[in-house]
């Protein structure tokens, strides 16, 4: 019975704001750059991870209009050379997002950094290329949002 009492007294949970946004949208920015501040053609920093591995560029992404990203999401990201179309890198993995409820990010699904790996490329081969980067996020129901940016690959 105490359960019933406790439940009866529990405040109604407020719906997560991230579920409320109507327009599906994904925003993408290089790590360390505020959302909306990056201008296409700007420097896209890349480097070697401290512990080794293929060169990478870190990004941050935030999504709106998708549901249940806290239960799971699939992220696909890839980059091609804007001039010759060469495939520069890709990454795909499952992860979960957090529904931000404070500050500038409130109402967006946010997560840890996304690392785009330039498999098979040397550091100096990448310098000066203009990379077209696309990131796509899918929620558990299969709905997707995507975003793109292009930047000049610049060593960290």
């Amino acid at each position: 019975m105490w359960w019933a009492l406790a439940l009866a007294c529990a405040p109604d949970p407020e719906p997560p704001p991230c579920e409320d946004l109507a327009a599906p949208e994904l925003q993408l920015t290089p790590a360390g750059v505020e959302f909306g501040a990056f201008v296409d053609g700007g420097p896209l920093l890349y480097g070697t991870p401290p512990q080794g591995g293929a060169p990478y560029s870190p990004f941050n992404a935030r999504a709106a209009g998708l549901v249940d990203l806290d239960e799971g999401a699939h992220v696909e990201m890839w980059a091609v050379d804007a001039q010759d179309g060469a495939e520069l890198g890709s990454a795909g993995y499952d992860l979960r997002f957090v529904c931000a409820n404070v500050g500038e990010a409130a109402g967006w699904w946010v997560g840890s950094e996304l690392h785009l790996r330039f498999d098979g490329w040397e550091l100096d081969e990448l310098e000066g290329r203009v990379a077209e980067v696309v990131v796509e996020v899918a929620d558990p129901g299969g709905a997707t949002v995507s975003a793109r940016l292009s930047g000049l690959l610049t060593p960290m």
Partner: protein
Amino acid sequence: MYRLVLAASALVLLPARAWACGGMFCDNVNPVDQAAERIVFGFEPDGDGSGMGTITTEVQIAFTGESDNFAWVVPVSSVPELFTSNDALFTVLANATLPIHTLVFEEFRTCDAGGYGRPANAMSDSAGSVYDGSTSGGVSVLASQTVGPYDTVILQANDSSVLVEWLQTEGYGIPDNIEPAVRPYVAAEQYFVALKLSSSADTGDLAPLGMRYRGTTASIPIQLTAVATIPDLPLEVFVLGPSRAVPDNYLHVRLNDASIDWYGGGLNYRDVVRLAADEAGGQAFATDYSGPASIMDGRLWSVGMIDLGDLRGLESPFDWIQTINFSGLPASSQLVSLIVSLVPPPAGVSDSDFLSCPECYASASDYPDFDAEVATDALEAAVIDPLRDAQEMLDGSVHLTRLFTTMDAEEMTADPLFVFNEDLDQDVNPQHIAINEVHCGVFEGDHAERVLALEDGRRISLPSEAWLEEKELTEFEYMEELRTPAALVIEDLGAEGEGEILFDYREQAFADAKAFGAGCGCSTTPRLSQVAAPAILLLAGLAIRRRRV
């Protein structure tokens, strides 16, 4: 009355089971029991503003299974210097920074009509909750050496399949399915350190491995760990450096103290971190400790711990053992292993029994070849030198940070990086206190209602012990609705500034705590004072009437 319940988190209570494959991999045909992965990073900046420095990484290694199956491979950014370390480094560090949750029981026997009395050391100023806001087939072997019990190679490769095949051919028990995980590291021409047990060693000889190399940032190559790990692998990371260390590309969580099982000794601490990290998407760390590295002064080695000159002069092996036993040398499996290799216990006697009382099981004359000079040299090389080096690393560091998380294989998609941030609050105390206030009670005993006062100022009304007992509930179970979310704050920290708070439940948590139990009629069992007071009044009335008669 004060009653203390002291409890360490489960961190040191874990059985000393094996864990292995940290940032590395093993033959996943033979499941590896990884109880935790403990890593110590030391960073010594060059001081020229380049961000470069010398990184020392020490990894505790344990492994269950056949010696032949043990293999450990880790990528590094430059050719490292390899050395063996000592388990005591991890044990002593872990114990010195252990999150401890203490519940203090206070009884308030003077209840007045205005409400509950407040203890002098109450954690909130108000009664309510206030928000406070060599090239071989594509593989170049750069170095090959024996380090402690390990045969090691440092190599590079230009083809991941060739690398895997080479390692397997050379007797490194790694599975085929690590090839995709290794591929990007090969593509970037990174170096690999591979080790296996020497033919003369077995898994009982495993010692922590240290690597010293040039770099800018401490990182765990966790993506390789994903190949062979257990669910929710605990990661315990100690970072020594100029200031507080924070995860750079992972999120950071601050825990909800209401999620802690205070009445159960806080033993669910690891679980709370696991839940909090999951709420943050699976890639997040909690800070267990942040503060001066000086708490480790002299903990591993100091000159006065043992007089090696005296030790060399002893004749009896038992005197030699007892002198070590009564010295300040920290216990470690390396110390035990060395002593029993020099003075083996008789058949059927365990190492620990023998070492606690060697003369109980043998006679000194059973060891005619014992030479204290030789034995002490071995002790110095195998045990004391690594302790001296580790102490030197600690002494040379200003700040120590301990971070903790747990991760599933599918969450290991990015290697966590750790950076130093001097703008954040530098101190995180590992000792946490909550107060169980028992209100009223001379006649009530365990029928008195209580308030659980948390460090952040939240005050949670709890029913009496008797009420919970009647309902067959624990306090932890009763507080279920307050235990979520496990992360009160999820934030994105970096090398500078205060970071960005992404999720903040603090204000709501205060509101939840205030509303919890209020008006619910949860205290269905009448308080004894409510029963006793009318009875006392009745008796008093009778007494007065008798006097008047």
